């Protein structure tokens, strides 16, 4: 009796398990989810090749790849952090490929082994109903008008937040962060977590919000404004990579081509990300409109632990 129930439960489990084990190509990707769903559907419609998607944060995607390393299944990886592409290339895990559709992708958004799908930038996300003046600069958020009203995404949990911290620190030292701390700014989780209190009005602004989430909220009618400080900000290109253990490299290359096609890039633009191709229109400020802070990624990432330690020391006080 008990054994048969066991068997029944196991059979039941098998029944509910979907048949995703073997498919045409497997894509692991950081958000946004709607974008990869769109791209996968479009690609399948065009080529007939089925796409299996695992979508999570960059961190979770990496943890899965690391744990699966003995028997990897991922063919194409889309990360939200360019650092991944550099690191994977160093490990020799990537297939060199330059898509014919990448001609109009600027050089700093592509390498031999990776090309950007789209680009996000960090900005100040500010709630106009918060009763505070509209900020224009990062340093404005350290002013008394914003006392206790600023959220900062955690640089330990968000690659782009880390790059912004490093870039601003290189520009003007730790003083800005000390002022923010003295003004009651708090470190609040990853990106979406930092934004929600601003939407409800508990906080007035996010210092370094990922722009496309806020822009999408704006479209939905949320009371939120996205401000790119004139003094400069950082961008987070989202690299697409083909893994060298992939058994479907030709299909994977086709997928990269599709992501960079007119159709694919239009889908990228529709999620309020900046398209990687400069010749694709988007209804939002583009790379050319922003003042981008240059960072020496190698130097910045080699000092990562030190920078995070300093940042935490300021905000843990």
């Amino acid at each position, binding site marked *: 009796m*008990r*054994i048969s*129930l*066991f068997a*029944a*439960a*196991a059979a*039941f*489990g*098998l029944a*509910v*398990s*979907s048949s*995703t*084990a073997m*498919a045409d190509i497997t894509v692991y990707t950081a*958000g946004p*989810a709607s974008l990869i769903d769109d791209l996968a559907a479009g690609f399948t419609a065009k080529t007939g090749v089925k796409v*299996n*998607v*695992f*979508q*999570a*944060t*960059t*961190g*979770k995607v*990496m*943890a*899965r790849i*690391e*744990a*699966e*390393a*003995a*028997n990897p*299944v991922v063919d194409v990886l889309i990360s939200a952090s360019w*650092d991944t592409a550099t*690191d994977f290339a160093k490990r020799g895990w990537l297939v060199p490929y330059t898509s014919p559709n990448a001609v109009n992708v600027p050089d700093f958004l592509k390498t031999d082994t990776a090309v950007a799908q789209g680009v996000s930038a960090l900005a100040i996300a500010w709630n106009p*109903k918060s009763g505070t003046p509209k900020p224009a600069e990062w340093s404005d958020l350290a002013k008394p008008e914003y006392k206790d009203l600023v959220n900062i995404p*955690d640089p*330990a*949990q968000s*690659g782009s937040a880390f790059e912004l911290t490093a870039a601003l620190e290189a520009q003007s030292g730790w003083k800005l962060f000390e002022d923010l701390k003295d003004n009651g700014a708090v470190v*609040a*989780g990853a990106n*979406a*977590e930092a934004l*929600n209190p601003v*939407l*409800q*009005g*508990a906080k007035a602004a996010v210092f370094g919000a990922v722009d496309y989430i*806020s822009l*999408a*909220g704006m479209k*939905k*009618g*949320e*009371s939120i404004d996205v401000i790119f400080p004139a003094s400069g900000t950082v961008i987070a290109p989202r690299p697409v990579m083909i893994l060298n253990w992939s058994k479907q490299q030709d299909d994977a290359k086709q997928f990269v081509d599709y992501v960079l096609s007119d159709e694919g890039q239009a889908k990228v633009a529709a999620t309020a990300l900046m398209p990687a191709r400069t010749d694709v229109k988007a209804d939002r400020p583009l790379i050319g409109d922003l003042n981008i802070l240059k960072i020496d990624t190698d130097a910045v990432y080699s000092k990562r632990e030190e920078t995070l330690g300093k940042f935490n020391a300021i905000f843990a006080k």
Partner: protein
Amino acid sequence: MQTMNGASVSASPLEAHSAAKKGLSGDDGHSAALWIAAIGLLLVVGVPFTFIVLQAIFPELGRGSLAAPFSNLGKTLSDPLLPRMALNTVGLGVAVAAISALIGVPLAAFRGLFKVPGAKVWDALMLVPFMIPPYIATLGWIMTLQPNGYLQQLAGFNLAPFLFSLGGMAFVMALNCFPVIYFGVSRTLEAVGGRYSDVGRVFGASPWRAFWRITLPLSIPGLAASLLLIFAMAIEEYGTPAALGRHAGFEVLVTQIELRVSDWPIDLPGASIMALTLVLLSFSAFLVQRRVLSARNFQTTGGKPQAFNKRPLGPLAVPVLMFFALIAFLAAGAPLFAILATALSRTISGGLVLDNLTLANFSRIYEDGAGALKALTLSLSLGVATAIVAGLLGAIASYVVVKTKSRGRFLLDTLTIIPNALPGIVVAIGLVLAWNQPWLPVSPYNTSLILLLAYCCILLPQPVRYTTAALHQIGDNLEAAARVFGASRMVVFRRILLPLIAPSLVASMLLVFAVASRELVASLLVAPVGTHTVASFIWRQFEQGSVGLGMGMAFVTIVLTTLVPFAILILLRRASGHDAML
């Protein structure tokens, strides 16, 4: 399910005789139970746990290499923050258990010993907090209590300083955990009954004295088991400490483990070592519990029929009902209100005004057939499957541990304790390491079965603790009497023990169902490609800033996970004509 309906406690001599004629079945039944428990536990707990230990020792395990053993141990354990995080973790666990006891024990005492008007309704309401995923409840509390939150919009003030403090965090977590005590202890008290305290009363004890000296001490197994579960739940909970603790500068082990596996370069060995620290903490708590239990004899269910008439509340009725209502409001009403309010809002910034009201989020769930409905079906099926597998495996394992003298039962017992404190994320990593080996001919990895394995591992302690406590209270003389009449061990288990532990078992299976159908952390990592559970669906919405849609889905799930158990209970009761649990 039939075995659970076998309600008659005393086997008729005739049946027992026919069972005896089957000859050797007694020992067969005994060893069958041992084998099922051993194989089941090894598969569900042993395999992933072994791989976590291996990963802690061999940093390159993920790449199939055993190079540089122990190289990470010193580095991780000498982290200067580790002792503080371990201390924080224990402190949080103790605080949550203490607050849960303060809320749960009085409620359980009234519910178990007195005639509380509307008892079934209160039971249902106290089940709701368990159906609300902790990360959702916490988000609900944040949106209610933060400045300009729902409380401020309705009443003009906010409680942000309280919420973002250590006390606030422990309180929010306790509101989610106290049902474990409420259900566990009220059942135990019912079982202990008024009988033993009546004996005390006959000998001149006052009602209070009888409660403190007789009823309460006898219900210690139930209380200790519940407290241990809550302590373990609290130290492995991720969502609430991550959302509230960071504001208070309060890092615990789980948040650090999460950071290590989500921050490139991924530090799997470090995470595994920290997870083993957590297991050690929970194991110590378990040893304390065992000391408490082994010191005395708690057997209260003898062969004599017990007609237990609960006492009326008398003048206490009004304050007691107010207490029940207050807790039900805080634990179920307020979070549900926040969830529903958010789900019905067009925009978050619009607030609680009439023209911000919309059903759009719910219609999107209904229309988005592919995504939302599929995720719901998968999660509910997995919840039912986990409840069945973990419930039966747990019951058999605790039977072997408590009622037999098998060799190796300590090992089995240990295997049931381990998952208590394994954070979901670490279970997930252990499962991937174990089941994604290239030489395996078949593997559950990348099918939904891997989720079933993960949930069973994480939730096994629930049925084990509940049924162990129940089995401790069943007198050995009952089993001996049946054996005298020739019943095999199998018959004794099925006809005597199982019906007696059924209420506890069913209660724990309901909890397993509720938690499994919304588990987040492990699901995010091991979900097969292209598959979504309810929790990962909701999480995707939050991550993209669609809080309203996520909350809508959460609300639908809470309603369904509350209704499904009730439907099952009503069916069970119809079938058996016997009041199983609620």
